[in-house]
């Protein structure tokens, strides 16, 4: 199967560069879901949210000519959709998994309808890769990580911010408390529902950014069902990353690498079934969960609506 491989350092550097590029949109979404799950909300509908905000963002960027407007609109779209989900899941105590599935269907259907009626979303102004000064000239690391688009660096900053907020702030503590033991948090005076809604809105904003990072940042436009499972990959990344921002980001990196390899292997004349690479992220996440049993628990109240005992 493998014939005489000689992978140069340059090729490996390219591989990591495309891994980081492919992981970026997933990273935003996964980071958002980290907030949601920490607060006890599982969102199977990320795929749909990402898709809808990708379209909204691309459309806004194309019609306004401004990348920033595109990202802002995508972010608002994500927040609006998560607002609806919050209304259903928290206001009406609806089953989170079912609401997520419904959201996916509505988003896939609606974006296809909109896309087919406008036919084309004009080419959105995109983001060009940056050259981060002398860092871009570091051998190997420079081309791999310091010639990325702005979105990549924003993601790194946001991950650092998320880690700080979740670990070190009172709000982060409350967030995790409502995800672990909502009854105790409630007894301690935390408004469980309010904190969960806030977490979902943060999740929506980040998922929206993820959608825009895909449509504006990378592909400069929208195509039908362009998210193609990335929302689900983000979910897997949150689990694989054990609900910790930096680990979740690393998980996205691993998944991005599997994705990048799919594109690279044929170029290196390595004949490896793409399906195997495609299942790898999910297998890794499953094995990791099974191996770390007990130590890798999801937030205890994940997917359970909170209802005050009377």
């Amino acid at each position, binding site marked *: 199967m493998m014939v005489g491989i000689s992978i140069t350092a340059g090729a490996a550097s390219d591989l990591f560069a495309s891994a980081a590029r492919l992981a970026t949109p997933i990273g935003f979404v996964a980071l958002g879901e980290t907030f949601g799950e920490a607060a006890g909300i*599982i969102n*199977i509908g990320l795929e749909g949210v990402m898709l809808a905000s990708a379209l909204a963002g691309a459309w806004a960027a194309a019609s306004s000519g401004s990348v920033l407007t595109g990202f802002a609109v995508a972010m608002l779209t994500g927040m609006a959709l998560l607002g609806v989900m919050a209304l*259903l899941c928290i206001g*009406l*105590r*609806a*089953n989170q*998994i*079912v*609401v997520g*599935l*419904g*959201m*996916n*269907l*509505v*988003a*896939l*259907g*609606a974006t*296809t*309808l909109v896309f*087919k*009626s406008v036919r084309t979303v004009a080419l959105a102004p995109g983001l060009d890769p940056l050259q981060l000064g002398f860092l871009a000239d570091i051998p190997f690391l420079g081309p791999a990580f310091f010639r990325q688009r702005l979105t990549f660096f924003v993601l790194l900053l946001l991950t650092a911010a998320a880690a700080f907020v979740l670990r070190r702030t009172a709000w982060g503590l409350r967030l995790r408390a409502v995800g672990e033991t909502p009854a105790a948090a409630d007894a301690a005076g935390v408004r469980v529902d309010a904190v969960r809604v806030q977490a979902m809105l943060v999740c929506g904003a980040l998922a929206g950014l993820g959608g825009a990072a895909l449509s504006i940042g990378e592909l400069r436009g929208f195509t039908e069902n362009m998210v193609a*499972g990335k929302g*689900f990959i983000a*979910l*897997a990344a949150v*689990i694989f990353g054990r609900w910790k921002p930096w680990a979740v980001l690393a998980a996205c990196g691993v998944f991005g690498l599997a994705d990048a390899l799919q594109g690279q292997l044929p170029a290196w004349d390595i004949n490896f*079934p*793409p*399906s*195997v690479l*495609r*299942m790898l*992220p*999910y*297998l890794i*996440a*499953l094995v990791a*969960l*099974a*191996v770390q*049993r*007990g130590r890798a628990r*999801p937030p*205890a*109240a*994940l*997917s*359970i*609506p909170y209802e005050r005992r009377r």
Partner: protein
Amino acid sequence: MSAVRLRRSLIIVGVNGVALALALAATAGIVALYDKPVGAALKALYEGSLGSAFALGTTLNKATPLLFVALAFLVAQRAGLVSIGGEGQLYVGGTAAVAAALAFDGLPRPLGLVLALVCGFAGGGLWGALAGWLRARFEVNEVIATLLLNFVGIAVSNLTVQEPSLLREPVTDSASLPQSPLLAQVVRLPRLVQDSPNRVHLGIVLAVLAAVGVGVLLRRTVAGFRIRMLGHNPAMAERAGVNVAVMVVLVMFLSGGLAGLAGTSVLLGEQYRLQPEFSPGFGFDGIAVALLARSTPGGAVAAALLFGALRAGGLRLEAAVQVPQALVLVVQGVIILAVAATAYWVERTLRARNTVEVAGATEQPAMVEATA
């Protein structure tokens, strides 16, 4: 007893009626946005789903996998397990069925077909049991395990049609598609009506039989009682002598097997060969069907027919009034969201009623609590 059940049915029918009305309103709204005549669109939906022998057959065939997956979901749900792994189980089951059908097509009718069905069930069942085992042995949350196994299952299925050493038909030239050879006539699910535009096949009969079987299993057998006990109170079930770990694996095997038959029916009854990505999300839509049915087998039959009709009508909609059939996805999604939004209220109302009648209170586990 009957008064309680009547009231329950009335509430459910009422709520579902509201959900459907909402969905119809959404349909009309979208069609109007497209500047197309709403009446013509609704007529096309009707004609495409019920208006002719062909349409009726399409509706029944589209309902078949949805019903199987709905049954798969509700069996697990009764045991307190939330399985969203229907899609992956459907792929693995369908792939196993095609592999068996290709291997056994030399056997006398109907032996090859029966073996293929058994393999379809077993394939999906093993995929489900894998999630059950991960939950029982390694404490991996079954929602997460089934979700992740979906994508592995789809990839495994795709792999078998991409590799010539597995199920891929011989590659003759560079243009040959990654797909399995066409199945022989003897291993296909036979059509119920010969020489008619109505292409309904045996699958719907099997699915309805499965619904009856699941109903009997849950209500009339010891195993079913244990399943429901597990769903209500795992700790109590354990104390009453139920081996919880074994039961979880067995239930997930049954659930996965039913989902496997969904894939099997599509491949052996309609597509006649395995291709990559052969399911347009039946495994997820079936969950919606189970939800709409409030997790009763009888309700699942009705809900599956409704969603089957929507799918069939959607095909016609696009041809007749040039509204993309993606409209149907929105309609389905709206129904799901509307039903989900009212589910809590309905359950609470019903539960309040049921506490009066103790025996009736064991009707349905609160799914949300059981996920913990």
